[in-house]
C-alpha cells in the first residue's frame, strides 16, 4: 500500500527542466537564508541566555544594517523575478508551428480534438519532441489544465480561449489534473497525457478515418452562410478572411488588434465588438447557434485560410482542401 516516498515529480517536457532548475536555485537560496537565520537565532538563544549578574546591552538599531538587509535580499529577489519571468514568458509564447489540439473542458471531463479530427476524452496522445499548443475553452465553470510532469498549468475559462504549449521529451503516461475547483467531481476530472514516440504517434493518428477539423469548419462556414459575405470579391459585405489569421487588424475605432483565436471566436459570437475598418456592423451574432466544438472547427478553418505555413505538422493537413476564394 505504501509505495516509495516520492520527493520529485516526473520531468517530461523541455519546460520541466527549466522550472526544476529554477526550483533548485530557489531552494538553495532560501535554504541558505533559513540556515542563516536559524543558526543565528540558536546561537543568540544560547549565548545570550539570562545569566546572574549580567544585564542586557541596549542597542538602538542601525540604519546601515537596515539598509543592507533590505537591499541585498531585494537584489537576490530580483534574480528570482527575472528568472521566473523569462520562464513564464517562454511558457506563454507558443511557437508558430506547433501542433494544435483543441480542448473543451466541462464538468467533469476533458474533451480533446486534434486537427485531424480525432477526438479523445480524458486522454491525450502527443508525440515526443514536437511542440503542442493547447487551445482551450470551457463549457461551464473555470477549470484548469495541469500536467505536473510538464510543469504547466493554465486556467480554462468559459467564453474565451486560453492557450498553453509544451514539448514532451520522454515517452510515458502522465497525470492530467483539473486544478481549479469546479464542483462536485472536481477530483474526478483527471486524465492521462500519453506521450508517444513519433512513429507510434503517427500510427495512432492514422488509425481512424476522421475528417480534419478545418474541413468540418469549412462545411460549417458554408452551411451557416458565412460565405455569402466573407468572400474576396468587392461585393463582400464582410472582410475577406484569407490570410487574416495572425496578422494585425485595423479596427473602426482606430485600435489595432492581432487576429488570434480569441479574436476570431469573439467575431463569431459578438460581431459588434470589434468592427474592421471600412466595414459596417451588419453581421448577426452566432451566440447560441454554434457549440464550442463547432466554434473550434470554424476557428481552425479560418486559421487554415492564413495560407500554408512553414513546418505545418504532417498529421493534420487541413489547408489542402481549402480554397482562399471562399
Amino acid at each position, binding site marked *: 500500500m505504501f509505495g516509495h516516498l516520492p520527493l520529485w515529480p516526473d520531468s517530461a517536457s523541455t519546460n520541466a527542466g527549466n522550472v526544476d532548475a529554477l526550483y533548485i536555485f530557489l531552494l538553495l537560496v532560501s535554504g541558505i537564508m533559513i540556515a542563516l537565520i536559524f543558526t543565528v537565532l540558536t546561537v543568540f538563544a544560547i549565548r545570550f541566555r539570562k545569566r546572574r549578574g549580567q544585564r542586557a546591552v541596549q542597542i538602538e538599531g542601525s540604519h546601515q544594517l537596515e539598509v543592507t538587509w533590505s537591499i541585498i535580499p531585494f537584489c537576490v529577489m530580483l534574480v528570482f523575478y527575472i528568472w521566473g519571468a523569462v520562464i513564464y514568458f517562454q511558457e506563454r509564447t507558443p511557437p508558430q508551428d506547433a501542433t494544435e489540439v483543441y480542448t473543451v473542458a466541462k464538468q467533469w471531463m476533458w474533451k480533446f480534438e486534434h486537427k485531424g479530427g480525432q477526438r479523445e476524452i480524458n486522454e491525450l496522445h502527443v508525440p515526443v519532441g514536437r511542440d503542442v499548443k493547447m487551445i482551450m475553452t470551457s463549457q461551464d465553470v473555470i477549470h484548469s489544465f495541469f500536467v505536473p510532469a510538464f510543469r504547466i498549468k493554465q486556467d480554462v475559462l468559459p467564453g474565451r480561449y486560453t492557450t498553453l504549449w509544451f514539448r514532451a521529451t520522454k515517452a510515458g503516461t502522465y497525470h492530467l489534473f483539473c486544478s481549479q475547483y469546479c464542483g462536485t467531481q472536481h477530483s474526478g476530472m483527471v486524465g492521462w497525457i500519453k506521450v508517444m514516440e513519433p512513429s507510434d504517434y503517427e500510427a495512432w493518428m492514422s488509425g481512424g478515418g476522421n475528417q480534419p477539423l478545418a474541413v468540418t469548419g469549412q462545411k460549417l462556414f458554408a452551411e451557416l452562410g458565412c460565405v455569402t459575405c466573407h468572400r474576396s470579391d468587392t461585393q463582400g459585405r464582410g472582410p475577406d478572411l484569407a490570410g487574416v489569421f495572425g496578422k494585425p487588424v485595423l479596427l473602426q475605432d482606430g*485600435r489595432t488588434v*492581432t487576429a*488570434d483565436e480569441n479574436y476570431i471566436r469573439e467575431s463569431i459570437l459578438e460581431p459588434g465588438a470589434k468592427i474592421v475598418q471600412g466595414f459596417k456592423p451588419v453581421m448577426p451574432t452566432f451566440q447560441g447557434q454554434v457549440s464550442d466544438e463547432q466554434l473550434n472547427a470554424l476557428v481552425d478553418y479560418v486559421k487554415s485560410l492564413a495560407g500554408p505555413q512553414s513546418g505545418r505538422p504532417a498529421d493534420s493537413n487541413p489547408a489542402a482542401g481549402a480554397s482562399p476564394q471562399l
Partner: protein
Amino acid sequence: MSDHNSASEHTPEHISEHISSLGSCLAIWLALLAGTTLTVAAAFIDLGPFNTIVALTIATIKATLVVLFYMHVKYTHEKLTGLVIVSAIFFLFILLALSMADYTMRLWR
C-alpha cells in the same frame, strides 16, 4: 489637553468651528447648478473621446467644491481629514488602475 494630539496643540477649544456665510453657501450652490447645466450641455456636443473626459472633469470639480466648502475641509485645521481623503482616493485609484492594466494589456498579444 494639548497633549492628546499634535494637531490640536494650538487650539485648546477646538470646538470653534467655521460658520459658513450665507453668501458662500449660495455661491457654491449656484456653482454646482451651473456645473450640472454645463455637463448636460457638453454631453450633447460631439467631442469625440473628450466627452467622457469633460464629463468626469466637471464631476470632479463639483465633487471638489462639495468636499472643500460643504464638507468644510477647506476650513478645518485638521490635516488628518485631508490624509484620509487622499488615502481613500489613492487606494481607489490603485484598484481601478491595476485592474484596468490587466484588461487593456490583454489586447497586446
